[in-house]
């Protein structure tokens, strides 16, 4: 039995299945982070003494991480574009870079966490820290998830390039869409938590 449109696009919708799937998944993710951002607003509005983010968090490190993630989004696009241009070794390079940049992000993040814990700033200390750790923690989980998928596509999953190049390219595209989303969430998180 063959499921239609796993590789080719359906003419009247212009989509292959996984692409629609990932967009729907991202819609639910928007609602997830949207709910957390709304909670942030509600908690902040109701609070008499909300701290200024920059007085607690390390803005230079946050900025660095923002740049890291944006760069990784670019390399992710390059990885996909290389496949479209049938250049497999370039794909390996750019995908590898994307994974590496994800790793850099996580290392920087763990330094930030470590510094906070060192100063006894735990989630339970204030509602500000609670939402900071919840939002960034959930985001970090998404980064890890994206990296696992990318690592699979870079390593064992890339064998599909030999057997079904179109499908493999689609997979990279789909994983890329998720990765851009993770990047986008951070671009909202950073100003909201660090700067405002």
């Amino acid at each position, binding site marked *: *039995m063959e499921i239609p449109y796993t590789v080719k696009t359906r003419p009247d919708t212009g989509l292959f299945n996984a692409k629609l799937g990932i967009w729907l998944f991202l819609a639910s993710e928007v609602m997830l982070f949207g709910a957390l951002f709304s909670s942030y607003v509600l908690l902040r509005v109701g609070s008499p003494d909300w701290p200024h983010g920059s007085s607690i968090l390390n803005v230079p490190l946050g900025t660095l991480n923002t740049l890291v993630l944006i760069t990784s989004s670019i390399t992710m696009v390059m990885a996909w574009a290389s496949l479209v241009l049938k250049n497999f070794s370039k794909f390996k390079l750019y995908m590898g870079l994307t994974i590496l940049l994800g790793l850099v992000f996580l290392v920087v993040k763990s330094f930030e966490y470590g510094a906070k814990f060192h100063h006894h700033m735990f989630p339970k200390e204030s509602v500000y820290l609670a939402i900071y750790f919840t939002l960034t923690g959930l985001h970090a989980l998404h980064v890890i998830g994206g990296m696992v998928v990318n690592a699979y596509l870079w390593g064992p999953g890339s064998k599909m390039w030999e057997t079904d190049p179109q499908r493999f390219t689609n997979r990279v595209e789909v994983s890329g869409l998720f990765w851009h989303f993770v990047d986008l969430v951070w671009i909202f998180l950073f100003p909201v938590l660090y700067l405002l």
Partner: protein
Amino acid sequence: MATHSAHPFPKSSAHDLPFWRKYIFSTDHKIIGLQYGITASFFLFFGFCLMMLMRWQLAYPGQPLPVIGTWFGDANMPGGIMLPEFYNSLGAMHGTIMVFLAIVPLVFGAFGNYIVPLQIGAPDMCFPKVNAASYWAYFTGGVVMCYSFFVPGGAANSGWTSYSPLADIATEGQTWWLIGMVCLITSSLLGAINFIATIVQLRTKGMTWFRLPFFVWAQLVTAFLLLLAFPPLEAAGVMQLMDRLAHTSFFLPSGLVVSGKVLEVSGGGTPILWQHLFWFLGHPEVYVLILPAMGIVTEIIANNTRKPITGYKSLVFSALTIGFLSFIVWAHHMYLTGMGTKVSAFFQTTTILISVPSVIILTALFISLWGGSIRFTTPMLFALGFLPMFGIGGLTGIPLAFNATDIPLHDTYYVIGHFHYIVAPGTIFAIFAGIYYWFPKVTGRMMSERLGKVHFWLSMIFMNGIFLPMFIQGMAGVSRRWYDGGASYEFVQGVIHWNVFMSVSAWCLALVQIPFLINLFWSACKGKKASDNPWDATTLEWATPTPPPHGNFVVPPIVYHNPYDYSMSGAKKDFTPQNQPVEA
């Protein structure tokens, strides 16, 4: 079985898979649908048992439960007398299990999975492996919920709504409740993505949007509700977990006093936040419970009146409108939280607006009966029973929509009566209707009409026996959370004699399911053989062999007709299957 030897299995069938791949870790939408159906039926029964226990305490407060009372241990029912904490657990878990583990998995997971791909002419769901993952996430969530009964302090006991701060400081069961919910939410999200992608991508040739059976439309809207409404509850669940495990204060205000002592937390949070996030899911969720039921009923009414549904398009647009509006009515569950008059005016307006499409659907279905030559089969009886029951449920919602009338009714048995009319004699009747209707497709055999009719009429009587008095009690002010059914409250003495009546009705309702169970098992083995299309129906699920093989259709069907082309003028028979070629 002789019936399907005539239909050779398509190539690459699941024929030679080992048992565990074929029936346990299957990726076939029909097997997954049945897995959902069996698991969810178990939970429906389980949730029903919890409620029957509660009904003992409500009818005979403080009296030991005979015979089985001592089975529940001294921590719950010492000497067979129910402790208040145990009663609270039963209430919270009854609601949780019925909503998230029984009804939604039945109407969406079971019926949706089995029927949707067949009705759109697809070989399977878009993502069969994701489909299996969705079932196993659901199963895990169910196991976690069951396990939570055995942790110290018992299962969650802060109501199915888990309001904070109560839930923040509740016993360990609440933590497991949250973990279980995360599994269930994951399952629903995976399912929702799969349903939408399947309906958009895998419609067969000729199956245009307005040739989709209404059941498919209903499932599509349901999937969108699940997709977009569940994540906020997941966010809320994560925050409540943080509150409980990392001792944050998302839902705890400053200076909260518990048992005479100020709680040692940072404070600064707000309990209202939980309510907003919960009901942002909670309200769309009630339409998740009812829309697929409307879909089932529509199929059966069209088939048994032998005429097209009146106003098919208005049904579709009503369902879409419901889908949209259900995201902006949630605060009607929160009138008592002291919101401003402007906010409350907004939510009163949207709530009344959303009743309009529901009434359109109900009216269209009623008008569809008019002038039909109705066949009173068992599925049709249940479908017909659904209509007035849903009507009562809906109409009793109107007074709740208005702030002024809601304030005295909130958290009374009136509310319990209101939503149970929708889910119990409403959705559950639709589920029974669906079982009787599609059983021949699944098993190749018919169910007994005689037993079915007994089952219908007795269920109808006892359902009303349980829920009708709830309105009387509620209007007299009986609160939904009282553990003694009102015995210790002076002002409700005039209405609490109903408690015994309601409880006896509930136990009788359990007994009259016996004919159904006999029917189900007996017919599966010994029932009359069914043809591929025993009801002379038009939609595509009847164009498959019985039971449908892996991959469903022998050749991919092509659709030429509207979903309910019954009694078309000029046609030879009184039904024109969707895939019957148009004669030149």
